[in-house]
C-alpha cells in the first residue's frame, strides 16, 4: 500500500453530491448508489478527487436526510450497505476518496433512541436527548430556522416534556453531557471508517452542548468532545479527515481547528457571500477584507471554500447593509429568499453569464482553501425556487436531453423532484452529454481549471499574498509554496480593465499563463501592465529567470 499523504485534503478538489439527485439506477424515480457508481467515471473525468455524500442514512427525509433515523444503515431507496461497499470500492479503485455527511448534533424524531426515550422515562435513551419541563432554559440561544421555528424547545405530549432542538422540531438535539451518547457517536464513526470511508463532513458542530447564560454555540465542552473525535481518527484511522460545518465568523470558526487537534477542514462561510458581493460591486474589498479578518490556522489544517451547496446561500455572516445589497442583486423574487439566505444555484445567481460563472470558479480554485464544487454547477444547472424549502437546488442531475434529463427512466410523475425544464436552464439546454461534445462548454472550462489547479501544490498548500494595484476592480494575489509562485489576476468588473502590478521582487522572471501555456513578457523593475477583458482572469506561473533558462555552463562555447 502506498503511504497516504496525511495532507491530501489540501490538494484535493471536493465534489458535493446527493445520492438521491445523481442517477437513478433502478428506475424508481430516486437516485441511488448503483446509479452513482455508474457515474464515477464522469467524476474522474471532471478531475475531482473527493466526493462528499449528503446523508444517505435511513431517514423520514423531512430535512433531506439530515434527520437521521439510523446511523448504521442506508436509506432503502438508495440501496443497501453492500451496494454502498461496492460504490466505495469502485470510487477508491478510481482514485476517488469519499467523505460522508455525519450529523452529530441531532437525530430524527423517528430515531429509535428518541422513540424509546420519549415513551419511557426510565429508558437509558431518555437521557440521549435534552429534556426540560420548561421552555425557558437556554434563552440565549438564537433560533436558526427563523422561517419555520418559533422556539428551540418543542413539547412532546408523549414524554410530557419539552425537548431541545436547534434546527427543525423534528430533529431533537443529542445530549452530549451523556457519556453514552459520546461513546455511541464514536462507534458510529468506527462503523463507517471500518468500511473505508475517508472521513466525515460533520454537520452543525457548534451546537453540541448547552449551557445556561450562553449562546449555546462554540462552547468549550463542544471543542473538548470534538478533540475526542479527532483523537479517535488519528489513533485508529490516520489519513482520514474531519470537515466541520460551522457557520461562524472566521475567528469563531478558527476554534474548530484547535491547535491542529480538532478538524482538518472547516468551511469558510463568510467568504462565500463576499465573492458574490465583490463581483456585484466590482470591488475587491469584500474579499481582501474578509481575508484580513481571517486568522492564521494551524499548518496541518485548511479552509474549505465553496460557491454554492445544498442549502440556501447563507447571509448570516454579512452586515445588514451587505445583506440588503445581496437580496437586491440576487433575490429579486421574494420566493428566492429563505431564512437568512437565497435559495438559488450558481448559474442563475450569475444570470447565466458564462464569464462571471468562470470568474467565480477561478476564485474558488485559486484562493487559499480546498474547493468544493456542488453537483451540477459544473454544467451551469439552474434551480426552481417554487419547489419549497431548499429543494429548488436539489433537483435531478441533468445528464442528457432525454426523458427526466437522463436521470431516471421512471414515469416523470414518480421522480423525487422534477428536473429543471425552463427554457434557459432546462435539461434540454443544459446537460452533461451536450457539454461533453462542445469543447468550449462550461463543463470543459471547469475541467481545464481543475486540471490547471492540479499542476501546482501552491493552490492547495501555498500562502496567499494580496497585491494592491490602484485599480480596485482587479483582485490580484500570489500563491507561494516553496519555490513555486503563482500569480492570479481577476477582473471583477463587467468592463475591460487595465492594471499595473508591482512585481519587482520577481524582476527577470517570466510569466507563463497556465490555461494556455502562453509565455508573457518578462517581469522588469517597471510596473507590469496587463489588460483584462470583462470578468477576465489570468493564472500565471511565475518562472524565475534562472529556472526558465537554467544555465548549463556550456552555452557560450557549445558549438
Amino acid at each position, binding site marked *: 500500500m502506498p503511504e497516504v499523504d496525511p495532507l491530501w485534503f489540501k490538494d484535493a478538489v471536493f465534489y458535493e453530491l446527493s445520492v438521491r439527485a445523481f442517477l437513478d439506477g433502478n428506475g424508481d424515480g430516486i437516485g441511488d448508489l448503483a446509479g452513482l457508481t455508474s457515474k464515477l467515471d464522469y467524476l474522474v473525468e471532471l478531475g475531482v478527487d473527493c466526493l462528499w455524500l449528503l446523508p444517505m442514512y435511513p431517514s423520514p427525509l423531512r430535512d433531506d436526510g439530515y434527520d437521521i433515523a439510523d446511523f448504521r444503515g442506508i436509506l432503502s431507496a438508495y440501496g443497501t450497505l453492500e451496494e454502498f461497499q461496492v460504490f466505495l470500492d469502485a470510487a477508491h479503485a478510481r482514485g476517488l476518496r469519499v467523505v460522508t455527511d455525519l450529523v452529530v448534533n441531532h437525530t430524527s424524531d423517528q430515531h429509535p433512541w428518541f422513540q424509546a426515550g420519549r415513551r419511557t422515562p426510565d429508558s437509558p435513551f431518555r437521557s440521549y436527548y435534552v429534556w426540560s419541563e420548561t421552555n425557558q432554559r437556554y434563552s440565549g440561544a438564537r433560533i436558526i430556522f427563523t422561517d419555520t421555528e418559533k422556539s428551540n424547545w418543542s413539547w412532546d405530549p408523549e414524554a410530557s416534556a419539552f425537548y431541545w432542538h436547534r434546527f427543525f422540531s423534528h430533529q431533537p438535539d443529542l445530549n452530549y453531557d451523556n457519556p453514552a451518547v459520546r461513546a455511541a457517536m464514536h462507534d458510529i464513526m468506527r462503523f463507517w471508517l471500518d468500511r473505508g470511508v475517508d472521513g466525515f463532513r460533520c454537520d452543525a458542530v457548534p451546537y453540541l452542548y448547552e449551557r445556561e447564560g450562553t449562546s449555546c454555540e462554540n462552547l468549550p465542552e463542544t471543542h473538548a468532545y470534538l478533540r475526542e473525535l479527532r483523537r479517535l481518527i488519528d489513533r485508529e484511522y490516520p489519513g482520514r479527515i474531519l470537515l466541520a460545518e460551522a457557520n461562524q465568523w472566521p475567528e469563531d470558526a478558527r476554534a474548530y481547528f484547535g491547535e491542529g487537534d480538532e478538524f482538518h477542514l472547516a468551511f469558510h462561510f463568510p467568504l462565500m457571500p463576499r465573492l458574490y458581493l465583490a463581483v456585484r460591486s466590482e470591488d475587491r474589498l469584500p474579499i481582501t477584507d474578509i481575508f484580513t479578518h481571517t486568522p492564521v490556522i494551524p499548518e496541518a489544517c485548511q479552509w474549505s471554500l465553496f460557491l454554492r451547496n445544498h442549502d440556501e446561500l447563507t447571509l448570516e455572516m454579512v452586515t445588514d447593509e451587505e445583506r440588503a445589497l445581496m437580496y437586491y442583486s440576487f433575490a429579486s423574487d421574494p420566493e428566492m429568499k429563505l431564512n437568512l439566505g437565497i435559495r438559488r444555484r450558481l448559474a442563475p445567481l450569475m444570470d447565466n453569464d458564462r464569464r462571471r460563472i468562470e470568474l467565480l470558479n477561478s476564485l474558488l480554485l485559486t484562493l487559499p482553501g480546498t474547493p468544493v464544487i456542488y453537483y451540477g454547477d459544473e454544467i451551469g444547472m439552474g434551480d426552481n425556487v417554487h419547489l419549497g424549502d431548499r429543494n429548488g437546488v436539489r433537483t435531478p442531475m441533468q445528464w442528457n436531453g432525454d426523458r427526466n434529463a437522463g436521470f431516471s427512466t421512471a414515469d416523470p410523475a414518480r421522480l423525487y423532484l422534477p428536473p429543471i425544464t425552463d427554457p434557459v436552464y432546462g435539461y434540454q439546454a443544459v446537460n452533461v452529454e451536450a457539454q461533453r461534445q462542445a469543447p468550449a462548454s462550461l463543463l470543459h472550462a471547469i475541467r481545464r481549471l481543475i486540471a490547471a489547479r492540479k499542476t501546482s501544490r501552491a493552490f492547495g498548500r501555498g500562502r496567499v499574498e494580496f497585491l494592491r494595484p490602484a485599480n480596485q476592480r482587479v483582485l490580484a494575489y500570489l500563491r507561494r509554496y516553496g519555490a513555486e509562485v503563482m500569480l492570479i489576476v481577476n477582473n471583477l468588473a463587467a468592463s475591460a480593465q487595465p492594471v499595473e502590478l508591482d512585481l519587482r521582487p520577481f524582476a527577470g522572471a517570466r510569466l507563463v499563463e497556465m490555461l494556455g501555456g502562453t509565455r508573457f513578457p518578462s517581469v522588469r523593475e517597471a510596473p507590469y501592465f496587463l489588460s483584462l477583458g470583462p470578468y477576465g482572469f489570468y493564472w500565471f506561473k511565475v518562472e524565475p529567470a534562472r529556472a526558465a*533558462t*537554467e*544555465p*548549463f*555552463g*556550456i*552555452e*557560450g*562555447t*557549445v*558549438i
Partner: protein
Amino acid sequence: MQVEALDALRDSAGTVDVVIGIPTYNNARTIGSVMDALRDGFTKFLPDTRTVVVNADAGSADGTPEQLMAADWDMVGVRARHASAARERSALPYHGIPGRAAAQRLILEAALALGARACCFFPADSGSLTPDWAVRLLRPVLEEGADYVSARYDRRRYEGTLTTGLIYPLVRALYGLRIHQPLTPALALSGRFVARLCAEQVWETDPTRHGIDLGVIALASLERFTPCEVWLGRLVVEAEGRPSDLATIFSEAIGSTFGVLDHTADGWIHVRGSEPVPVMGEGATAEAGAADVNVNGMIRAFTLGRKDLLPLWEQALAPETLVEVLALEPVPGEAIPFPHELWARVVYDFALAARFQTLYRPHLLRSLVPLYLGRTAAYVLETSRGPARDADGWIEACCRAFEQQKPRLAERWR
C-alpha cells in the same frame, strides 16, 4: 556588392591571390584588433600575396564597416552590404551574423569574379585571432594543393559539446570526413572549390540560412575536393547579443544540420565509414575539470523532458529507441547510462522525424535538447575524473557508434 562592381574591381585589381572575407554585424568592439592581426600576419608571413579584403556587412549601426576600412593597412578593400532578414537583425542567430549565408555567397562570388587562388573567412568578433591564423589557413591551399581547410581550435574540456557530441559524429558518419569543427567561422577554400560552390543551387534554401559550412563538407566529400585541418589555437568570440539559451542555439544549429541532409542525401547515403583528414599543426591538451558545467541542471532538464515531452518523443523516436530512452534512470551523483549506440539512434530518429515532418519542426528540435543534455551529463560524469584522453576516447567511441548505426538511417531515409 553588385556584379558590375566586381567586374570593375577585377579590371583595376589585376590578378588577386587571396580574398579575405569578413562578414560583420555590429562588431566595432573587436574589428580593430582583428584587422590589426590580419595586417600583421599578411605583412609578416605572406608579404607578396596580392590580397583583397571583402567586408560583407548586415547593416551595422556601430560603424563596423567604417572602422574596418579605416584599418592602417595598405590593401584593397571592398565594402558591401549583404541581405539579411529583419528577424535575424533583431534577434541574432547563434553565430552572430544575420544573413550569414548571403555574406558568404557575396564573398565567394567576389573571389570568383576576381579570379582569386584562395578565399578565406575570418570571424570579426574574435578577440583571440592572432597574426599566424592567415598563413596557417592559406598555406595548405596556396602551397600544398588543399581545396578546403577547416580550423581546429584549442578548447577546454567540455567546451563545444554540441560539436563533439552531435555535429561532429553526425557529419563524420554522413560524409566520411573527420572534420572536427564543422561549424567553423575560420576556413580557407581553393579557387576551384570556390567556383564549384558558386555553382551550387542551395544558397537560397532555409537549411543554409545559417551558412554553408555543412554544404562545403558535403561537397568536399562527395566530389573529392581535398580537405585539410589546421590548428589555430583558442577561439574566443564576443558573444554579446547572441542567444544565450541553449534551446535556441541548439535548434538553430541542429535545424540547419538536419536540413542539409535532405539536399545531400543522394551522396551521403552511399558513404560508409570515415577517413582521417590531414592535420597541420599541434593542438593543446584539453584542460581537465568540469567545474563550469552544471551537470545537475542537465540531469534535471533531462528528467523534466522525460516527463513533459513524452508525447513528442513518441512521435519522433522509433518504439524500441523510446523504450530504451525511458529506461534511462539518472542516479544522483552517478553517471547516466546513456550508451553511444542509443544516442546515435536517437539522433538519427530525430533526423528522420525532421525529414518526414512528423512534428512541427521547432517543437521537434527543441524536444531533442533534454536528450542532448542527458547525454552531455553522461559524458561529463564519465570522463571528468580521468585524463583528457578519456574524453577524446568517449568522442571517438561516439563517432564509431554513429558510423555503425548509419545503415539504419540510410535504410529508413528512403
